[in-house]
């Protein structure tokens, strides 16, 4: 009985969590304009979604979201990983201070980050657009990368860096051949974290995208909803995004499971 209750509880939680996504997925296979009406099975919304191509405003928003996500994630991963190594090698008070400074942007509400970046760009006279959005995303993603790389550095035997120098590696070679391979799992998860943070950002993007019609998915959907109702094509889009994210997660998990199990074999 106890076991049954425990099982029921976890299923209830899962249903509450996944029901909205499931409903969207189901109703992506019908043509009805209003969500909730079932007018028979159809894949028309899917074909519509792709027939618009990259030239449609929705297509552009998707491309923007992905390219900003990849760019911001790549830059913040590079910055964040190096910063983590730097902070890790600091001593005492300086290290505590920087760690605290790194934590603040994560706790800061998005809206404040967005508004303050907007004011900063205006004050500096920078025309807002694609570049400012990327910069803004880099600024709020980097602390998360630092946070995901830090534990890997702590697990590392600090003497391995010195051992590399000792064996004739320059500091740069030691970083590439000894430190990076050891912290790679943290760097990869930092990249993925940064990417997901970037693609689902709304508030910061809204304040830094400027007035030249640049949109990512969030701001596009927001604008679309304000014009009157959601475009039905968003339903298949959500479903696809969900499946892609799910696939990514599965790949990462399977990879890390395999890594810890099998021993590498030398060829």
């Amino acid at each position, binding site marked *: 009985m106890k076991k049954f209750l425990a099982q029921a509880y976890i299923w209830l939680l899962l249903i509450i969590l996944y029901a909205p996504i499931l409903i969207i997925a189901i109703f992506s296979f019908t043509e009805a304009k209003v969500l909730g009406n079932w007018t028979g099975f159809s894949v028309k919304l899917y074909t519509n979604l792709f027939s618009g191509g990259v030239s449609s405003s929705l297509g552009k928003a998707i491309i923007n979201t992905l390219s900003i996500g990849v760019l911001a994630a790549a830059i913040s991963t590079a910055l964040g990983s190096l910063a983590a190594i730097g902070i890790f090698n600091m001593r005492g008070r300086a290290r505590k201070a920087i760690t605290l400074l790194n934590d603040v942007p994560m706790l800061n509400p998005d809206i404040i980050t967005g508004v303050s970046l907007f004011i900063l760009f205006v004050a500096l006279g920078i025309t807002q657009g694609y570049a400012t959005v990327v910069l803004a995303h880099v600024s709020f993603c980097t602390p998360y990368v630092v946070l995901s790389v830090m534990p890997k550095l702590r697990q590392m*035997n600090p*003497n*391995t860096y*010195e*051992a*590399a*120098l*000792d*064996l*004739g*590696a*320059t*500091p740069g*070679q*030691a970083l590439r*051949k*000894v430190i990076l*391979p*050891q912290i790679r799992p943290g760097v990869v998860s930092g990249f993925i974290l940064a990417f997901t943070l970037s693609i689902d950002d709304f508030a910061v993007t809204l304040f830094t995208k400027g007035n030249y019609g640049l949109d990512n998915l969030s701001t596009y959907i927001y604008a679309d909803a304000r014009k009157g109702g959601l475009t039905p094509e968003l339903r298949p889009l959500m479903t696809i995004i969900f499946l892609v994210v799910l696939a990514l997660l599965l790949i990462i998990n399977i990879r890390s499971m395999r890594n810890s199990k099998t*021993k*590498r*074999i*030398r060829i």
Partner: protein
Amino acid sequence: MAEQYESIIRLENLSKIYDGKKVLDHVGLDIKRGEFVTLLGPSGCGKTTTLRLIAGFIRADEGRILLEGKDIAGVPPHQRPFNTVFQRYALFPHLDVYDNIAFGLKLKKIPEAEIDKRVRRVLKMVAMTDYEDRDVESLSGGQQQRVAIARALVGEPKVLLLDEPLAALDRKMREDMQLEIKEMHQKLGITFIYVTHDQEEALTLSDTVVVMRDGKIQQIGSPRDIYNEPVNSFVADFIGDSNILNGTMIRDKRVAFIGHEFDCVDIGFGENVPVDVVIRPEDIYIKKDTTGEQFTGTVTSCIFKGIHYNMLVQTDEGYELEIQDYNAFEPGTVVGMHIHAGDIQVMKKDRVCNNFEGELLSPTSVRFLDAEWEIPETQIPVGTKISVQVAFNKVNLQDNPVDGTVEGEIYFMLYKGDRYHITVRTKNDEYIYVDTNDIWDKGDQLGVKIAPRNIKITPIKDYKDDD
């Protein structure tokens, strides 16, 4: 060409300061080509710092390191012809045994076939053939240490630096590895600089032992010299078992301790000078027959140690001595003992009482050791700089640190046959020396009190303050 230098590494006046604390204090050392040198001392003595300075991981605040006569201050670690074996192995976890060892050779762009030959050669040397493909994390501690040694040797360094390489291994494994390291040193003929806190290891392995304490070298010598002729009570206590006793040098070749006079071989101390006397436990001859012996006593404990028995003997004069003998003498046995003149090691005392500098605050109080102390009323004018003397046995130690005038901890202790001689380190890193019968442990926190009548003050003549 390089062979013309007898000395391969020379340390000149090396000092290193961490957070305002001098961890290395003007260290000078000459290391000969092919020598096995061990830096020995308790933790925090500066031995690892010295090794890291030589390797180039840290920079000296003062002094120079010369390699074959040339200053290597500007040479980064990856260009120094030294390799290091680290305490916790520091193998690269993402590489297998082969790639760990080949790491340095690949960086130097040595041809594949040559790398292969050399890796296999060192693997054979450390008895790890057939382990090439193993993941380093699947190896035992001893195997990892072998790989670490192989990795350091494959680059054919001029000097091999070893930082407590056996500290993480169990006793049996450690002893086996000691023999192997010694063999390797003899076979390779290169210089080994070895850091350890284990005196047995140091004596077993080394040509030269360098005993360090508080960033300073205490003694440099062969294992025999260090053991038989320690220069001070710290070295005597740190190396092997010993009886360290207060004595008085009566005149040349005659010394008094434990209430008796003995012939010895030391000269040049002067007459009636207080000294420390060191007698190794195996150098006291013990017999059941008390006639004709130098002194007598009663056995209080007897423990079998495998080869010999370790006994404690209470002499008739009340001193406790540690004695080792192949024969067992049961507790309660009355025994006679004698010591040969050559086995008595006499050392100059570092000090005979506590000396502090202070200032008179009022006719009844002085300031020294950053605290205010009460004294019997004095006529010396207030504000005078004074020198303070306190006898070792007039210092009171309090269990509760706040009960003392200053707080401190037990830093070092020495049993002197009838009392403990304790070094107390205060919060401000100053030392107070105390004779006591109470048993303390190293690291104990305590408070220090001194009765007013036991604080002896004399004014210091300071001409700068005169007018």
